[in-house]
């Protein structure tokens, strides 16, 4: 299926291109590309975020492909220096990967294994608690195609897809007509649970406002009702939601044909974290006694789901993995990057397609300033500026092909718009892994 058709001499139209901005990974983009200017001039079907993602991506050819201590060097020199840093480190930390292809993620896990390093994705500061929560209670899961064709009850809990994943509602979950949802939006009920009204509230049939930090108690209350119990007045006191509203919500959830709970940082990054996520998964399990109910985290970065998936099938664990002893071990809090950095344990870091220097806690950033870092990024960032070795890479999805995983764990191929003069993450990782292997052999 060739998707590229020459419309005008220097204009290329790419059909069925994939947007890698958020976890929706919409694969029905029609991109118009000005090849002279190396710019995407039009992104048909894209949401407001996708339009900005495509429109604002330009390639600054004046940037060096690699830098050591801020000075331009050749790619080979930089790879050699990066390999030496990583091989000499006793506790190297490899982090990021969410904005990279699964092929590059696979190579990254190989590198971590080879180095006996610590490897972690941005999940650990995002939906990591979801992974921890479901390990204890199981995951009633689904795909977005199933949601489109079957779901008559959509719950958005602690997330705001209208702003963060605009096409989750319009393309997959709320508006489209499906096999068993012939009238689209009219056949579905949308419930929004949040601490304040958001733009998602505008598309919801029911809005339940919960007191900040009491989602766990509300979930616990719903579980009691779904299991046939009764609520005492303390639930209203603690959650701020009247008992009759909780009862109404529970009966709606139990009486639907196919329900889905989408949730976001409102659960995973507020007090209770993994236990909030776990409570939501347990609610879905309880609801399966009455009807069919599933859960899906609304994942943020384009391929953060891929990072979890690739690490799971390569090591058995989704994030926070340590190879120090030659085999993978998983322990959130112990082997998650932000905790390692806050305790000052790492002696080198390799940051792939992410920017922890801009969003980690201050003690973590302070430690990262002290250790040699390697960064892979298409643009200059606080991380690339603080890195000893900085690689400029091509942007995945726009410039490089590969595979990314949608938030429902479905792999989607990428169809790049135009070529970049810079190498992809994978193009650098492959020779880097080769060089690491050579240096390791020389050591023994």
């Amino acid at each position, binding site marked *: 299926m060739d998707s590229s058709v020459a419309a005008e001499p220097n204009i290329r139209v790419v059909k069925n291109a994939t947007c890698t901005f958020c976890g929706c990974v919409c694969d029905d983009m029609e991109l118009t590309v000005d090849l002279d200017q190396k710019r995407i001039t039009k992104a048909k079907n894209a949401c407001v975020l996708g339009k900005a993602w495509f429109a604002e991506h330009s390639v600054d050819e004046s940037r060096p492909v690699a830098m050591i201590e801020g000075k331009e060097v050749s790619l080979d020199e930089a790879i050699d220096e990066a390999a030496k840093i990583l091989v000499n480190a*006793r*506790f190297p930390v490899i982090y990021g990967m969410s904005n990279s292809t699964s092929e590059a993620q696979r190579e990254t896990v190989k590198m971590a294994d080879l180095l006996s390093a610590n490897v972690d994705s941005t999940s650990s500061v995002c939906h990591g608690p979801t992974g921890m929560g479901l390990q204890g209670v199981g995951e009633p899961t689904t795909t977005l195609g199933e949601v489109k064709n079957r779901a008559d009850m959509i719950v958005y809990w602690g997330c705001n897809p209208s702003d963060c994943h605009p096409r989750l509602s319009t393309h997959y979950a709320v508006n489209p007509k499906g096999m068993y949802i012939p009238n689209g939006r009219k056949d579905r009920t949308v419930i929004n649970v949040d601490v304040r009204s958001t733009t998602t509230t505008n598309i919801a049939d029911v809005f339940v406002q919960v007191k900040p930090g009491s989602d766990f108690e509300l979930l616990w209350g719903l579980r009691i009702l779904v299991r046939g119990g009764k609520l005492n007045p303390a639930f209203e006191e*603690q959650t701020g939601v009247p008992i009759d509203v909780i009862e109404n919500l529970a009966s709606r959830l139990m009486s639907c044909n196919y329900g889905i709970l989408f949730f976001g940082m409102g659960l995973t990054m507020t007090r*209770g974290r993994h236990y909030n996520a776990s409570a939501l998964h347990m609610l879905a399990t309880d609801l399966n006694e009455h009807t069919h109910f599933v859960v899906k985290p609304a994942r943020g970065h384009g391929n953060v789901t891929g990072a979890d998936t690739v690490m799971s099938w390569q090591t058995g664990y989704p994030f926070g993995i340590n*190879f120090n002893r030659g085999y993978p071990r998983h322990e959130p809090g112990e082997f998650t990057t932000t905790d390692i950095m806050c305790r000052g344990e790492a*002696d080198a870091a390799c940051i792939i397609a992410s920017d922890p220097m801009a969003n980690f806690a201050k003690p973590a950033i302070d430690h990262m300033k002290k250790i040699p870092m390697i960064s892979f990024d298409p643009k200059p960032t606080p991380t690339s500026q603080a890195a000893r070795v900085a690689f400029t890479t091509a942007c995945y999805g726009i410039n490089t092909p590969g595979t990314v995983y949608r938030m429902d764990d479905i792999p989607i191929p990428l169809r790049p718009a135009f070529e970049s003069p810079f190498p992809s993450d994978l193009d650098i990782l492959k020779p880097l892994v080769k060089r690491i292997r050579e240096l390791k052999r020389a050591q023994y």
Partner: protein
Amino acid sequence: MKLTVHTPPEVPLEAEILSPTSLAGLSEAEVSALIVHHGNRKEALGEFFSVNGKMNGRLELEGDLSFVKLIGQGMADGEMFIEGNVSGHLGCGMSGGRIVLNGDAQDWVGEDMTGGSITINGNAGHMVGSGVRGAEQGMLGGEIFVRGNCKNEAGGAMRRGLVAIGGNSGDFTGLNMVAGTVIVLGEMGIRTGSNMKRGSVISMNPARMIPSFSYSCTYQPIFLRFYLNYLRDVGFEIDDAWLNGSYQRWCGDAISLNKGEVLLYQS
């Protein structure tokens, strides 16, 4: 035998061999030659510790141990005295013997322990006496005494044994508890006893209970006197008023078996 840190590790040092059980019958030279994991390298214990004395069931550790993990893992007998702060997994999976720590410990103290006792004359991190993540049951026996504060999920999924915290505990104290006793002399965080089946969580301060717990009665539990006197004997400061005091009894967690209890000192 006494082990003193002469070169603090630069990255985490995994030294599960540091227990009287593992070192029993070894000479100074043999102990120095034992292998520990310094990050991703295997190195000799002697690179970090100077070893003095004979091993006679008593092991002393001293110095900067803040990067040393897994001390006392699987310990079955003997005594260990530690001066200084230690990293995670102190006494994990231990089945007997005694550990006394003069300092702070990080997360996972006494994870999955089945017997013995751990005393921490300082603060502890998260998951004191807890089971590994996803496990249905954690601590199966033994005692953990923390003089200072601890963080979240103390006594998570414990099945038997005693966890006593002299200071405050974090959120989810006694989470998923199957049985056993957690006593917090200070204040507890929120969501105490979530999903607990049986077991007792006791605190000397008021606490906000999750609404799936129901108030049962206020009474003077006789058994608690024995516990509190025992804690006084092991060095905790016990107020006389607590011995004969009245306690609110809360039953829960209704979402689970509802056979657990939380006792909160009232007057």
